[in-house]
């Protein structure tokens, strides 16, 4: 039974590191070292967890030995473990990138504790098997995200924080009310117990509550039309934090939707999935069109987060094994690619002096390999074979066609095309055209080695996923199989 303790690691390790870094706030060097070591420890422990999950063992743990359905349970199936591992990897990437001087966050005593609290919230949300506990982890994510947003303390940061606060808090409150109504209707909060209740619910008595719950998670995921908090806030963050937010926060919302509709309440009436599919289509299209308007690289990429969320939701809306596989594959691929794009944009910013495409250029002439490095995640995001994004979209589009949802498939393809437009815009403006300032030269002293190390690793990961596709595909298929099994 002792190996079950690993299941608490994705939440406990970052919580411990947050505490340690908080205590070390007087010694910035030690604090940064402990923080980085903590990120490595988190990654190692989630990989152990992933190894157990891959072997088909679902580690479970009930705190205080109050057995489920009475106690709060943590469980790590393949889906949860893989999400926790990729989240830990992104936390490490962001903290390593922070060592460079490409738009890094200014050092202050609260930075590292807040980052680790955010990671704890994400890890806890992926591990928990209890609805109310999930809400608590969302709140932890919210409050540490607020701290990181307000961290710059300039008027634009404070403005972004306020908008994020109001819209996200209303989302979590809505989540609280819908969890209350699910509890009121079933008397359970534990996922397995709820699954059993859901299977017996033939009259659809629970459906309104499930829909409310999903809507609350969709606010967190940034789906159409409740994504306004995302483009209002994200672009004010420094690059490593922006990459971390982009990688994790919305995906936890998608994960929660997947967990509720794909696993716990998989007997929800088909109309709910159908509506979710149309929401996904609207999310894809509005996200990509929002991106087309902007010239600031951070804003363009922030809107692309929304459009990619659409693809993930599309897979859930398809409500089939293949759809869920596509959705999970999309989440894993997108976390890597999206983080990388934000980080490469930060390198471009460091070299050209601006995030605004109207004010940068000339990079291809002086740094041709940076251009290649940008094209790998950019083309993967678009979905060009053999990169990882192609397979994710291939699964989703094929499944849409198989189910006869031709409009959904067409929307997914159109969104890919418009994504290409945005990526080519960044490529042409930042890399290909001449720099608008004729006196522009590369900055003298840069510390970009950690930034290159992180971005190249992530780019290689994208290529590897695309070429050696089979293991990951099999893993996601097994994960979906495990998810769709009846409760014990």
């Amino acid at each position, binding site marked *: 039974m002792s190996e079950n303790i690993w299941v608490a690691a994705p939440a406990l390790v970052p919580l411990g590191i947050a505490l340690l870094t908080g205590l070390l706030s007087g010694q910035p060097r030690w604090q940064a070292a402990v923080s980085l070591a903590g990120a490595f420890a988190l990654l190692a422990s989630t990989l152990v967890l992933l190894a157990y999950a891959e072997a088909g063992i679902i580690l479970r743990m009930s705190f205080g030995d109050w057995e489920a359905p009475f106690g709060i349970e943590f469980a790590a199936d393949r889906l949860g473990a893989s999400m926790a591992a990729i989240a830990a990897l992104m936390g490490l990437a962001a903290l390593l990138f922070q060592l460079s001087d490409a738009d890094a966050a200014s050092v202050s005593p609260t930075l590292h504790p807040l980052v680790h609290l955010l990671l704890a919230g994400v890890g806890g949300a992926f591990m928990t098997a209890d609805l109310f506990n999930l809400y608590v982890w969302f709140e932890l994510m919210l409050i540490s995200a607020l701290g990181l947003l307000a961290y710059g303390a300039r008027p634009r940061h*404070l*403005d972004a*924080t306020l908008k994020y606060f109001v819209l996200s808090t209303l989302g979590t409150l809505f989540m609280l009310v819908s969890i209350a109504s699910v509890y*009121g209707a079933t008397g359970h909060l534990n996922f397995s117990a709820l699954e059993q209740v859901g299977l017996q619910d033939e009259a659809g008595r629970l459906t309104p509550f499930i829909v409310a719950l999903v809507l609350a998670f969709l606010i967190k995921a940034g789906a159409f039309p409740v994504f306004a908090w995302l483009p*209002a806030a994200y672009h004010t963050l420094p690059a490593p934090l922006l990459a971390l937010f982009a990688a994790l926060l919305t995906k936890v919302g998608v994960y929660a939707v997947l967990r509720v509709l794909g696993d716990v309440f998989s007997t929800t009436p088909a109309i709910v999935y159908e509506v979710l599919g149309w929401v996904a289509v609207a999310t894809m299209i509005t996200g990509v069109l929002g991106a087309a308007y902007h010239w600031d690289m951070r804003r363009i990429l922030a809107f692309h987060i929304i459009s990619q969320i659409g693809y993930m939701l599309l897979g859930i809306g398809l409500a089939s094994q293949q759809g869920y596989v596509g959705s999970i594959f999309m989440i894993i691929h997108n976390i890597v690619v999206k983080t990388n794009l934000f980080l490469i944009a930060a390198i471009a910013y460091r070299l050209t002096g601006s*995030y605004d495409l*109207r004010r940068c250029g000339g990079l291809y002439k002086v740094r041709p390999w940076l251009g290649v490095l940008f094209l790998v995640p950019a083309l993967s995001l678009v979905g060009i074979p053999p990169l990882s994004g192609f397979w994710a979209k291939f699964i989703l589009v094929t499944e849409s066609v198989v189910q006869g949802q031709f409009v959904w498939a067409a929307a997914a393809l159109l969104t890919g095309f418009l994504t290409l437009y945005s990526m080519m815009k960044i490529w042409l403006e930042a890399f290909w055209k001449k720099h608008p300032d004729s006196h522009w030269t590369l900055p003298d002293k840069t510390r970009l080695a950690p930034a290159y190390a992180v971005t190249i690793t992530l780019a290689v990961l994208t290529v590897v996923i695309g070429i050696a596709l089979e293991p990951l595909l099999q893993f996601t298929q097994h994960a979906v199989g495990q998810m769709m099994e009846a409760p014990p």
Partner: protein
Amino acid sequence: MIWVLAIAIGAMVAAGVYLVLGRDLLRVVIGVSLIGAAANLSFFVAGRVGTMIPPVVPLGETLLAPDAANPLPQALVLTAIVIGMALTFFSLVLVLAISQETGNNDIEKLREAEPPPAANGQPVLEDATISEQPDPRALEEGR
């Protein structure tokens, strides 16, 4: 009893939404915390209300009395109240910081993070790190 609580929750949400939709910063965050209080109350109602039997297992028994109060939602609501209090404090400090930094209490005029588009409909240049130069593209095209 439950109808009284239901009406109270409805009234609180209505008042909260009214405040959130207002233009005054302080009113907005007070509205959010009011809605939070309504959410907490609704969680409380999701248990059982109206019973006067305390949730204590009598001596010699192993189960609660059938009509006893439900302690679980009460414990959960306590958690939610604590979280809500932290968020309320944060938001009050945030409002204070915003009105001190910008001298502005009107949420409509608070466009620091999302400036309105320029006269030509394009997004404005907002990089603070670069000295303000005229946009070369705009000059070329004679806008």
